[in-house]
């Protein structure tokens, strides 16, 4: 997905800081590694399954935005956390991301946006441009922190699998990679 494309969409969920991969994709469902099936377990937290119910019911449109505080995706390297979000087509705007989650998300082509001062409530509409995010309800505009170079590279490449496949072809042709 092209990062520079402007997107306007609704905020469907607001999270606080330190949302771990145990919340995004609980350990109970780690047995499932098929990325077509992982979206069924996205945010299926024991005793707090409401957001999961909304996601699997289809009530939330692809392209909708979740907003989070700092350190979103901290903890485990489980790629199901990213693939389950990818399956619902969610865009993530966070104050900051944990490294492995952001790696995985970038490799799967999820649109992630780092906005250290973001202020938004559920139901607000955010317009995401190249360098800023505007909250259409409050009228406030917030700066985007650029991704690290390799994350931006992976996002621009459309994810790691197509990029790796191109490299593999080049390697088979005898090119040094």
């Amino acid at each position, binding site marked *: 997905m092209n990062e520079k494309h402007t997107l306007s969409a609704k905020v469907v969920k607001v999270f606080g800081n330190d949302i771990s991969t145990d919340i995004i994709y609980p*350990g109970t469902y780690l*047995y499932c590694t098929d990325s077509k099936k992982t979206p069924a377990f996205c945010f299926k*937290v024991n005793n707090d399954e409401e957001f999961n119910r909304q996601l699997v019911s289809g009530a939330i449109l692809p392209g909708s935005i979740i907003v989070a505080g700092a350190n979103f995706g901290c*903890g485990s390297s489980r790629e199901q956390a990213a693939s389950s979000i990818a399956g619902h087509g969610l865009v993530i705007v966070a104050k*900051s991301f*944990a490294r492995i989650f952001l790696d995985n998300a970038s490799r799967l082509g999820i649109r992630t946006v780092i906005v250290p001062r973001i202020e938004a409530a559920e139901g607000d509409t955010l317009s995401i441009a190249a360098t800023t995010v505007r909250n259409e309800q409050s009228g406030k505009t917030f700066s985007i922190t650029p991704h690290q170079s390799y994350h931006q590279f992976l996002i621009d490449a459309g994810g790691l*699998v197509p990029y*790796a496949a191109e490299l593999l072809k080049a390697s*088979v042709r005898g090119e040094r990679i």
Partner: protein
Amino acid sequence: MGMTVVEKILSRASGQDVVTPGEQVRFAVDLAMSHENASGAIPQHAEIHRVADCPVKLWDPSRIAIIFDHRVPAPNVDTANNQKMIRNFVAQHGISKFHDIDGVRGGICHQVLPENGYVLPGMVVVGTDSHTTTHGALGAFAFGTGVTEMATIWTFGKVLNMDVPATIKVVINGEFRPGVTAKDLILHLIGLLTADGATNRVIEFHGSTIAAMSMSGRLTLCNMAVEAGATSGIIPADDTTEKYLRTVACVSGMIPRVTPDVDAVYEREVVVDVSGLDYQVACPHTVDNVKPISAVAGTAVNQIVLGSCTNGRQEDIAAASAILKGRRLASGVRMLVFPASWRVWSEANQEGHLEALRAAGATIMNPGCGCCVGAHEGILAEGETALSTTNRNFVGRMGSGAKAFIYLCAPRVAAASALTGRITKPEGIQA
């Protein structure tokens, strides 16, 4: 300009004379580790070859390690099917560093790798597990990744792109008070740095406390570097590293040492003196919510967990056994013991520690991740509290979402608390 340990390792692995933080590099991998989540890497590996229209091929089967530990033995049909798929893949490609459910070779990946001499100083070790940081204790640049990147490593033997992380120098000086250990230190440090204070950074450990620390303690320290957000923790190889690799891991070849340049550039330096450090406890629901034990002493607990990749080694089990031997767990408390490997299990058994713990009322589990990852073997009920020597206390970590509570501590605190049913400072209990 001088380089840090990880910058030196990356310059070697990328074939460049110098690397600097923020620079995007492609570099060779020496060891690629997965556990049951290899079942996610296998289809991605196939997909890369399908898109490229090439026959499926593996880079170097001798440098790929697969260790079953997260759900052993399989608790459900899906896991059993995944394990079967991985066994077939291993046989098909001749992957030799495969550790199945096995009373001789089995265990948790982060214990099996060091014990078998798979990790040497200066290596690049990549694992599909966030606690791959553990192997920094042996002077390797070791970090966690997801299964799609693992599929590309299986294809090319390389990390295709990563920005060189900046390094934070952490200097630990002083002598621990009796009973206080590496676990208390790393909890204290995570509290200082916060849960994302070292994100996209390497923590390079130095100081007199580290120099005097056993390999067991160093593995604990580096294991939890990721809980401060770090890409990796690393301890430059020294005599302790060499002795461990020769005597425990039976490494006979050359053991390299990679040390930082005297003029290495660090992003910042953090100095900690441990001489006044008390036992530490990480409180629900974040690992950086760390308090000295006095602040939480008396908190009632239902389940005590001893073990895991963080604190499941011989030293940890012996410390708990010394406190619990000849005593009995408090009524209403259950205790689960997960040795980090079957080798640890066997040694702890021969020295009588497992029987001492059993006789005190503990349940001795098979080596593996057990309840730490919330899949099986000790899920908490709603309203219950665990005191655990593992590494994470997130909502839902041991099941039951935000209605269960996990406190993290060192083995001695776990053992002392098992006797009272409340978080208890060990002093005064040991005979």
